[in-house]
């Protein structure tokens, strides 16, 4: 898996497909960071929404790094044919970790905020739950499942809107409301960890489904 991760990461870095989603997130964080001394958690609520979109885009980009034929070679060479999907998700999540980590600290660099370490922890974990959710949607919107980019874009847009706006669809909307609700971070650690665990299990469940769909498409 390490070799596969290195190969996928090398391809992504060479083709620079990560740039648009990373720049989108960076712009949201830069514009959204205010130096008004307000609490950090409502800012992090905005980052949660932004990283959902960026992670989805990143995952689709990582999955599109290889040509279809080259991807077939890589799948055959992997010990398990679903390993490349795992590697793609891990590479996308690596970018997400860097983005979420930077976004947690960025407001402290450009302004003065009351900084409780638990705020930073909750902000980071909440972003990772959203990033994982974006990765799951990205897996289903990738070329491996949906051959036509137009349909993939449509599905991605519908999924993002539903995840952001529908109150009862976990975990992004509930997390945004939680972070923006004005409660202290100490009360949020449990729910945020629960969301992370839910997303991690969902990612693990999604990979065999996507692999199965991939094997019945062209």
């Amino acid at each position: 898996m390490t070799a596969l991760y290195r190969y996928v990461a090398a391809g992504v870095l060479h083709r620079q497909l990560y740039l648009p989603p990373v720049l989108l997130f960076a712009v949201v964080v830069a514009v959204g960071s205010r130096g008004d001394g307000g609490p950090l958690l409502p800012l992090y609520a905005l980052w949660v929404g932004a990283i959902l979109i960026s992670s989805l885009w990143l995952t689709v980009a990582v999955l599109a790094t290889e040509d279809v034929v080259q991807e077939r070679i890589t799948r055959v060479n992997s010990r398990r044919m679903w390993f490349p999907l795992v590697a793609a998700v891990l590479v996308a999540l690596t970018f997400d970790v860097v983005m979420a980590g930077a976004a947690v600290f960025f407001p402290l660099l450009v302004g003065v905020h009351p900084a409780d370490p638990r705020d930073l922890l909750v902000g980071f974990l909440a972003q990772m739950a959203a990033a994982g959710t974006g990765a799951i949607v990205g897996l289903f919107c990738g070329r491996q499942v949906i051959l036509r980019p137009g349909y993939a874009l449509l599905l991605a847009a519908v999924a993002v809107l539903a995840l952001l706006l529908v109150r009862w669809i976990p975990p992004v909307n509930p997390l945004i409301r939680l972070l923006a609700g004005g409660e202290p971070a100490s009360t949020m650690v449990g729910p945020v960890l629960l969301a992370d665990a839910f997303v991690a299990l969902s990612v693990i469940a999604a990979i065999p489904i996507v692999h199965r769909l991939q094997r019945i498409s062209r």
Partner: protein
Amino acid sequence: MKLTSVGQRYGRGPWLFSNLTLDLEPGEVVAFSGSNGSGKSTVLALLAGLLHPSTGTITGRPPSVGFVPERFPAQQRLSAAAYLAHMGRIRGLSTAAVRHATPTLLERFSFTEVLGSPMRTLSKGNAQKVALAQALLVPPDLLILDEPWTGLDEVGHDVLAGIITETAARGAIVALSRHLAVPGPVVESLRYDLDEARLFHPIPSGPVADPAPAATVLIELRRRDGAAPLPEALARGLVSRRTGQDTVTLLVPQSDSDRLLLAALQAGWSVVAVTVTVTVTDTGGPRDTRPSAGLPYDSGDGPPRASDGDPA
């Protein structure tokens, strides 16, 4: 490895093939032939495990599979050396082992470019050699080659034929597709024609190093009304059948051609064209086998293109 009643279709599209049952023993070299769109590449994708068959089962797939596509899209910025290093590591080799194996393999194929060059700058033939090398970095138990004779030069043909023979001799299964209008050594011990849904036992070209291979003749026949089925002796040499028309192309040894032509005429078939295959042998050099004239194609049909409508 066993294929039992395997059938494949995409979505609600037509069946490419159905009820394909084959038992592939270690050391077997099997070729899949057929017209464009008959499903040759799809069968290979099924054998590799890339696709799940619409019906039937495939069991006993060996753990180590080498896969060489028909067209290797070398669009990567990675160099050939870096790409092969990645593929070797993915297959479980150490970086040092890949670095040791790569030059030997590529040298055998007469790879003519700098290993450090970006893959996108490689010629089609050299890119195909990189594709072959990645499949052979770890000796595969199942080697899958999609139309391997296209894109390679004559030296590559001979080297590849040798590699196929060696791989089979090791006890591995080799599966390949061939467009039979494309010249290439006959290395297979079995051929399954997807248009015919029928197994043939072709006559292999013999040892690759044979300095004087037998000349062959391409015969195009058309079935007349009331003609009997193709005689068995002729059916063994069948290389392609045009779907929807009663026209077949055969590749037979020149020494047998008169006898086989007579058998075809007696069975009620009409001879459309006969093309002698010229064998040029340089002194100690590579063998170059090519038809003395272009294959006879029906008007409007055009020569088959490597990827023309061939799914997957």
